[in-house]
């Protein structure tokens, strides 16, 4: 065989056809709604696995400032056993199924997720129902979990990235709003919460019309009532809690904040401002806009500048997040202490430059990268689960990835410039720096127009 011509890269060929796993929708007699996918089909060599998620609308948005942390605490308590099985017995049961069981709590929801081999499906569904509908909420478990959280709250002060996130939230929303407090809560709110409060929080979330099931990897819609008889007949008697708003005003100007960690070898920087909800029509377009700026891309402007050119950081990332309520736009990086002010200034400058316009190359790069990523993105079971879950939660159409692909295909430079003009505000940013105050304070003062506000490390204490 002759040697290949290495100076001519073999580019991608003809893009494969975009094929999304078809979703089914179903509603149980009680009003619980479900979304799912059938199995992968005959050709698959992946082992037969199913992923089951039951989402309660009991996230942080259903908290008040007085109960901050109760969503996360309730999620943790749902792992502590059921009426028939204490926490240890439940774990043994899950181990016997070779199952993964997680209960993350986000702003929007508490999600019970169980991943197991398809052969264990009936038992897994019954167990999921039991966990959701008959939580044990034992006194000893509650007290232990609560105390563990108090330790965790204290220990957050040791993690510069968490300190930065907490400080950023506090200055963005204010500590008199749910968004301004850490998801784990504060010492005061967690100390005050009772077992009865947790039980009531859970009970108010048990409204069948608000529960969402997503079942991917080989569950058929017609089997649902038999697999989930208790959810199918769940009485509609809950009184859902009101939902907090996460809308927040933009900062008036570039405001610098410092949390002093004497002697820290690095500074954790968090720079940004409020953003949009996942349901906002610009949500996906903003992901595209952010891609050349500092989104997942190693080739982004921020990363090429701060990491590849300057060597100030192991990595820098920018992104929009958001759920049912508006989220944020943030740039985050851990930078060398001596480069702190320069890095923060460079981040602000990159945002300003970005608003001067993207290049044709960046538009094409984004179109190709994100468009072709969609072609391979839905292969993992977890991605199919996220697809089903997003459709269930946000009411997005089943073919939203295809619509995103279509949007990318018509996207122009003017579209991205317009998005940047409307959604990036380099003159109205909060800049939070967590690091060695003695060395980084002067530079931050210059950045904040002569002033830097010093925050306590455990401001939420």
């Amino acid at each position, binding site marked *: *065989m002759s040697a*290949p011509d*290495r100076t001519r*890269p*073999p*580019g*991608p*060929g003809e*893009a*494969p056809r975009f*094929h999304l796993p078809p979703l089914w929708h179903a509603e149980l007699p009680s009003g619980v709604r479900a979304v799912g996918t059938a199995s*992968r089909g005959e*050709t*698959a*060599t*992946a*082992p*037969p*696995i199913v992923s089951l998620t039951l989402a309660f609308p009991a996230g942080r948005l259903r908290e008040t400032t007085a109960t901050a942390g109760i969503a996360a605490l309730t999620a943790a308590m749902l792992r502590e056993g059921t009426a028939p099985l204490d*926490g*240890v017995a439940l*774990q*043994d049961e899950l*181990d*016997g*199924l*070779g199952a*993964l069981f997680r209960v993350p709590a986000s702003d929007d929801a508490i999600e019970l997720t169980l991943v197991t*081999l398809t052969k264990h499906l009936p038992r897994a569904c019954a167990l999921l129902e039991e966990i959701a509908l008959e939580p044990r909420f034992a006194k000893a478990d509650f007290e*232990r979990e609560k105390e563990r959280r108090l*330790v965790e709250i*204290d*220990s957050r*002060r*040791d993690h510069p990235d968490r300190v930065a996130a907490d400080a950023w939230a506090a200055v963005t929303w204010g500590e008199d709003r749910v968004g301004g407090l850490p998801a784990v809560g504060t010492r005061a709110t967690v100390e005050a919460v009772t077992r009865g409060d947790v039980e009531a929080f859970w009970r108010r979330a048990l409204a069948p019309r608000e529960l969402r099931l997503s079942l991917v990897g080989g569950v058929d819609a017609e089997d649902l009532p038999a697999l989930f008889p208790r959810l199918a007949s769940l009485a509609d008697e809950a009184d859902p809690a009101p939902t907090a708003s996460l809308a927040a005003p933009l900062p008036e100007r570039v405001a610098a904040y410092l949390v002093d*960690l004497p002697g*820290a070898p*690095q500074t*954790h920087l968090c720079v940004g401002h409020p953003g949009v909800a996942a349901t906002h029509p610009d949500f996906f377009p903003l992901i595209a806009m952010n891609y050349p700026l500092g989104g997942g891309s*190693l*080739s982004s402007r921020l990363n090429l500048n701060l*990491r*590849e050119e300057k*060597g100030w*950081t*192991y990595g820098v990332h920018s992104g929009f997040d958001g759920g049912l309520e508006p989220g944020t736009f943030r740039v985050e990086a*851990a*930078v*060398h202490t001596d480069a702190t002010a320069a890095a923060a200034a460079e981040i602000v400058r990159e945002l300003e430059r970005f608003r001067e316009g993207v290049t044709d190359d960046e538009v094409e*790069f984004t179109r190709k*990268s*994100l*468009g*072709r*990523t*969609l*072609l391979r993105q*839905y*292969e993992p*079971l977890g991605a199919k689960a996220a697809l089903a879950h997003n459709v269930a939660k946000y009411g997005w159409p089943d073919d939203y990835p295809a619509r995103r692909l279509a949007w990318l295909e018509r996207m122009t430079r003017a579209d991205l410039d317009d998005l940047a003009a409307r959604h990036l505000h380099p003159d109205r940013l909060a800049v939070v720096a967590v690091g060695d105050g003695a060395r980084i304070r002067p530079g931050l003062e210059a950045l904040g127009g002569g002033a830097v506000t010093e925050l306590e490390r455990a401001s939420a204490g």
Partner: protein
Amino acid sequence: MSAVDVPFEKHVLANGLEVVLHADRTDPVVAVYVYYHVGSAREEVGRTGFAHLFEHMLFQGSENVAEGDFFRRVQEAGGTLNGTTSEDRTNYYETLPSDALELALWLESDRMGFLLPAMTQAKLDNQRDVVKNERRQRYDNRPYGRAHEVVRANLYPVDHPLHWLTIGSMADLDAASLDDVESFFRRFYGPNNATLAIGGDVEPAAALALAERWFGGLPAGPAVAAPVPRAAPLAESRRLALEDRVQVPQLTLAWPTVPSWHPDEAALNLLTDVLSANRSAVLDRVLVIDEELASTVAIMHRPLELAGYLSLELRPRPGVTLAELERRVDDLVAETLERGVEPERLERLKARREGQVVRALDTVSARTATLGHYNLFRGDPGALAADLARHDAVTPADVARVARDYVVGRARVALSVVPEGRPELAA
């Protein structure tokens, strides 16, 4: 066919490159993995951290791939990519839409064959800074972040390559030179020291032809012998304390065990599950739930090619001292051993382990990685089944025996991490 039998073909090119192919045409996805049989355990004193720094250099372009183009071309093709370095191996991988397979093979073969012309002092200096920032972010500026490094430094003698972590020391990173890059590349990055695994939406014959086209012409490097295990028994226990910016103290107990694929490895893995797989395990159940002495318990068994170690990390509840915790751990492990492990518990832990393994085979990328991994270390891409089988064969008596042979009453490293200015809290 069991759920862990991933279909594959294996071929060896004339230059020694081992090629493993896995076809699954369900989704339009391909994965490419290159595993090199070199990691930080091949480093020398004074050049720690080099294998990982070198991994960073492999993304800086090669003769026909301009600086910045490696990331850019993979991303533009809709792919994702990364590289990872451990003590025993370094891997590089891409997952892409299937029409971009050849692009990935061009990129990987160019850096395997034609890296050196693209290496410059400026690139080395830049990546050295990036890696030093990685070290600060992941170790120096993270609570308890230096504990693992101190434990390793005390488990192994100064000239044993497990004495240091893969991230290396700041001074050694500073000392790394372009000459080091060249000699490391020539020594370890030949096709005969690597496995290329390709999986997903591809005809095996076509994939093999492409592998031959892009890699077949690369010259073999010098032979690289497999590492020889080097046991490092502790003559006596060592007790250490480290002050850190933390609120809650932490105790780490670590014991030397066995290298990977030693006959006792599987029983030691199950011993760690028995002790602390999750809340149902004895240490978690008693220390966290029943007696409320600990807030967290974490266990890890790390069998590596040269040697292995088992470590247990505990944080006390408020009001409990590290010394009390340590005493209770010793009692509990001894009691467990005396009572014996219930066969049902062991079977459940095996089911748990199998569930983990099976769930991890969900994606083309993960299956391709698994085949590449087992080929590199066992010469058999399908050795996962044998790996599971040896765990299935472990009996309660095996678990008790390895607990006695390696843990109970054996010399160990005990490291206390305490809040700054509170040395009296050490165990």
